[in-house]
């Protein structure tokens, strides 16, 4: 199954057990922030799985575009959820240092307020809870990608490069164990 990956902030999608105050299929407001920050009515997403790229490879490529190591929060949802919003997925190449994943980038467009709400509701109700990779796991993924030659060290920002260089000197990797609640 092809899924869609979107970077979010996990805390916006978290909730205490009791959400009785929400009527019908309503959702809390904070998750909207992760889908409403559009650029020219578009939203940047990535395809993973069957019709897309490898989840961790895409996450690694995205994390490597940052200035420093940090946690990496993202949400995955079925491509079919986008049908509810009648939104198009436009093939627009990604801009990461890993050429092998850039073709899996898409722009969700055009987006209106109603469409953003419809998608966010679908993801909230039917998607997986957001995944968080710790800073250490992200560092290891990037170090592995650099070691494998998928991401050039010189493409990293100076602060990130220093961290990764230290990691490469320190040794072996550990597989990522995301937390999903």
């Amino acid at each position, binding site marked *: 199954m092809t899924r869609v990956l979107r970077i979010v902030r996990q*805390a916006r999608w*978290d909730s205490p057990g009791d959400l009785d105050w929400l009527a019908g299929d309503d959702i809390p407001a904070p998750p909207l922030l992760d889908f409403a920050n559009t650029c020219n009515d578009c939203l940047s997403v990535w395809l993973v799985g069957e019709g897309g790229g490898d989840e961790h490879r895409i996450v690694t490529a995205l994390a490597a575009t*940052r200035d*420093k190591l940090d946690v990496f929060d993202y949400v995955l949802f079925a491509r079919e959820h986008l049908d509810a919003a009648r939104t198009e997925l436009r093939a627009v190449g990604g801009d990461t240092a890993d050429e092998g994943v850039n073709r899996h980038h898409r722009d969700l467009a055009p987006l209106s307020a109603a469409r953003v709400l419809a998608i966010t509701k679908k993801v909230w109700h039917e998607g997986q809870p957001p995944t968080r990779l710790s800073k250490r796991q992200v560092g290891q993924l990037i170090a592995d990608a650099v070691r494998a030659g998928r991401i050039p060290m010189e493409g990293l920002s100076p602060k990130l490069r220093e961290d990764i260089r230290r990691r490469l000197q320190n040794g072996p990797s550990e597989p990522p164990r995301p*937390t999903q609640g």
Partner: protein
Amino acid sequence: MAEDPTLHEGQSTGEGPPKEVSPDEDEAILEVREDVAEALAEYLVSLRRGPADARLLGDHLSEGLLISALRLIGPGGKYPMDRGRFWQLMDRHCPFTPDDPDDKRHAGLVDEIESLFIAARNESFEDGFDSALSLGLQALVLKHGDAALEVVSNLILDERVSPDAAAEALRCLGQMESPGTREARRRLLERGLDCRAHVARDGAVIGLSDLRDLRTIGALERAAAREDYRLLRANMLALVEELKGISP
């Protein structure tokens, strides 16, 4: 001033009984002293060649002392020192709380930190990127030490800043490399687990994961036991497991 050559530095000030050193160690210490004196003399000579400004001499002298010593003990120096040991000694003999906590200076520091948080109201924070708030806070903590942390602590724990700004501050405090303020930062991050806003508590957990201090396990376990937000609770428990896996 006459000195007993059998004493280590710092032991002549009454800190316990003097420790005897072997002739070899004694010789090494004397050699280091000579090297330091030589480097100092070289520096002072270079000062005399520059523009004479008596007011700056005190500052130059202290910088010269520091630079001479650092050249000797830094990587590639004649007596390279382990980085951890260096910070231990710095903490013990020259703790980084340089500013006197007099009222005027303290008020200035409070203003400066409050201004950072006020400016942060218009800032959007993004994972993986430094913010003006995080860079500003880190600089002030490095400069003012625990005094700055106390101000930040009051603002966050009294909920006088937005949850997002509190989270950003807590995250950047965990990330800093400032051994002299580590204890105060750990205490603040642990108290951050009690913030009312779950976003701020999340920032505290991320900060604590950067700190990697086994002593935070208890605080994290207690916080997890009372946490209503399930993803946040899972993050707390995951961090507890990670810390328990670290050899003390």
